[in-house]
């Protein structure tokens, strides 16, 4: 049966009317404001999302609620005073923030910490990684409504914080690293206690893996969600686990030559080919295990000797520039230090990991569904102090 001309025209008109109707019925866009006090934000990140139905069409993280201006403050401090400021950048792994700055200053002064201090620095560095990432692993469940893991995380992180407190005197802000070495030697009995805690932390990793990573809900909410291809990850300067989860085998602990002791231990850099939210969390879990292994091995290899080399009482750093970065819990943390001689730095550019890691959010959140925003942000793992500096 063929349609008459009149029927054909009527059909086209009906289609056109439907099309017009669709335009009229199109859902109105809506702006959703996440934060600044959302629990997924580890601080006060605010994200403004433009929604079309359930999908994000445009997301804009709004930083600056915690900007403390460290780059300016550092310019009016002397070198020994700077560590007090910089260990507040990433407050969950603060000892790791001090190390690259001290290394940059030591590089310009052409001194090196004694071997014993180098090994103890590495141990404390890895302990702050464990303290930092264990909280992430627990917090991961909270983003998806699983309350239990976070209690496990807080319970077990406390053991690590007690160790850091025992050695440095500060749970969160050790301020223990000095130009030329460390403030003090390790207390008696600390090594045995650390070995004991490392076993507990390995158990904690197993527990978290059982509780979370095999969980079907977690997998279905993270597998294939928020995929970052390797090329994009590099373009945005992602680092740390976020980069390795996109399949790039790059770890500053292994791939650069620093006067620290990672090469004394036998450990592995984990990567994941997927680049999705699950991969990022999984890589972090493996890294916590590796960190426990590193600490465990280094405890046997602490050489005897002083923890402080001879430095002038008034520290002056010669003219020059140095960029030193280390693989911090969150990623590449570096200090570009410019000195013109004198008691304090002339300019310090703080390259913090989270700033780059979260700058991918506008690209990554485009097109995802609203519930995934939270899991993607959680898996990117940022700390506000590390974004805002």
């Amino acid at each position, binding site marked *: 049966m063929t349609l008459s001309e009149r029927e054909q025209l009527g059909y086209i008109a009906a289609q056109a009317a439907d099309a017009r109707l669709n335009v009229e019925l199109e859902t109105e866009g809506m702006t959703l404001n996440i934060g600044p006090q959302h629990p997924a934000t580890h601080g006060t990140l605010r994200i403004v999302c433009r929604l079309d139905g359930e999908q994000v069409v445009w997301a804009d993280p709004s*930083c*600056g609620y915690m*900007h403390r*201006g460290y*780059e*300016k*403050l550092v*310019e*009016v*401090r002397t070198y020994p005073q700077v560590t007090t400021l910089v260990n507040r950048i990433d407050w969950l792994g603060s000892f790791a923030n001090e190390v690259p700055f001290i290394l940059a200053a030591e590089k310009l002064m052409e*001194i090196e910490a004694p071997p014993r201090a180098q090994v103890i620095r590495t141990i404390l560095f890895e302990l702050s990684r464990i303290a930092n990432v264990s909280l992430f692993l627990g917090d991961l469940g909270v983003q998806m409504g699983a309350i239990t893991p976070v209690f496990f995380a807080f319970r077990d992180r406390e053991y690590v914080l007690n160790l850091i407190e025992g050695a440095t005197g500060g749970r969160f802000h050790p301020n223990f690293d000095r130009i030329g070495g460390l403030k003090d030697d390790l207390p008696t009995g600390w090594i045995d206690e650390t070995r004991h805690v490392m076993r507990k932390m390995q158990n904690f990793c197993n527990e978290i893996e059982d509780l979370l990573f095999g969980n079907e809900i977690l997998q279905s909410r993270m597998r294939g969600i928020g995929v970052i291809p390797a*090329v*994009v990850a*590099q*373009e*945005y*300067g992602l680092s740390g686990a976020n980069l390795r989860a996109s399949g*790039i085998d*790059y770890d500053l602990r292994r*791939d*650069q*030559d620093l006067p620290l002791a990672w090469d004394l231990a036998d450990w592995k850099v984990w990567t994941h080919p997927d680049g999705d939210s699950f991969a990022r969390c999984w890589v972090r879990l493996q890294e916590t295990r590796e960190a426990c292994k590193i600490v465990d091995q280094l405890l046997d290899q602490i050489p005897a000797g002083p923890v402080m*080399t*001879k*430095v*002038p*009482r*008034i520290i002056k750093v010669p*003219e*020059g*520039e*140095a*960029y030193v*970065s280390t693989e911090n819990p969150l990623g*590449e943390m*570096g200090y*570009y230090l*410019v000195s*013109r001689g004198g*008691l*304090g730095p*002339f*300019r310090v*550019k703080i*390259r913090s990991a989270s*700033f*780059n890691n979260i*700058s*991918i959010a506008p*690209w990554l959140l485009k097109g995802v569904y609203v519930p995934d925003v939270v899991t993607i942000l959680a898996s990117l793992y940022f700390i506000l102090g590390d974004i*805002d500096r």
Partner: protein
Amino acid sequence: MDPLSDGTSTSETAASADAVDATAALPGDGLREGIVDDLRGRIGDALVDSHITPNDDLWVRVRTDAWLETATALSDAGFTHFSFLSAIDWMPSPYGKGEDDPTADPVEPDTEIRPGVTGGDTRMQVFARLTDLTRHVGITIKVDIDDDEPLLDSWVEVFAGANWHERECHEMFGVGFNRHPDLRNIYLPTEFEGNPLRKDFPLVARMVKPWPGIVDVEPMPAADEDDASQDSS
């Protein structure tokens, strides 16, 4: 670090010998010299200056108009990981460190611009860092910018991650970026006036309340003691 540990020979860089005098004097670092030569092949005489710390680090300085070209060239040469971008104001702060005794006579501030060993001709300099993730080598790229008209080409089309860094640089140093998609403030309120990281922007906290350290500072060690400890180190 022993600069002689790498036995590679110093390569000839006759093309612009004056620019690499400092480099040629140092013992060799084949990898980094190769990178500089390769970059010179790609952008020609837009490469103004280069400096290699053997087996450690590398920086190059390029002409302002070749800033974007340099990004493309380095990206093609394998430096695909964007690390950071920022700026430096070479003018020393006219306010000092705020640690002087407030009762003493004010000292004439030293505002002479001396970039020194790190290079640079103008007051403001922008620098960025890229990493090659396969060869495990980083490079710092510097560019001098005109103080009267601080303007550069944006890197966003080559490295998308430069977006936020350029926004930060814009608000903190007042450096403009051509063809940047969205040069809003990132940290500061929209209506904020001034560029806080410029040295002539006062740190008001230090001006309203003097540094407490000057009141109860322990006596400085005598000069000879200081010298002695320096000799022994």
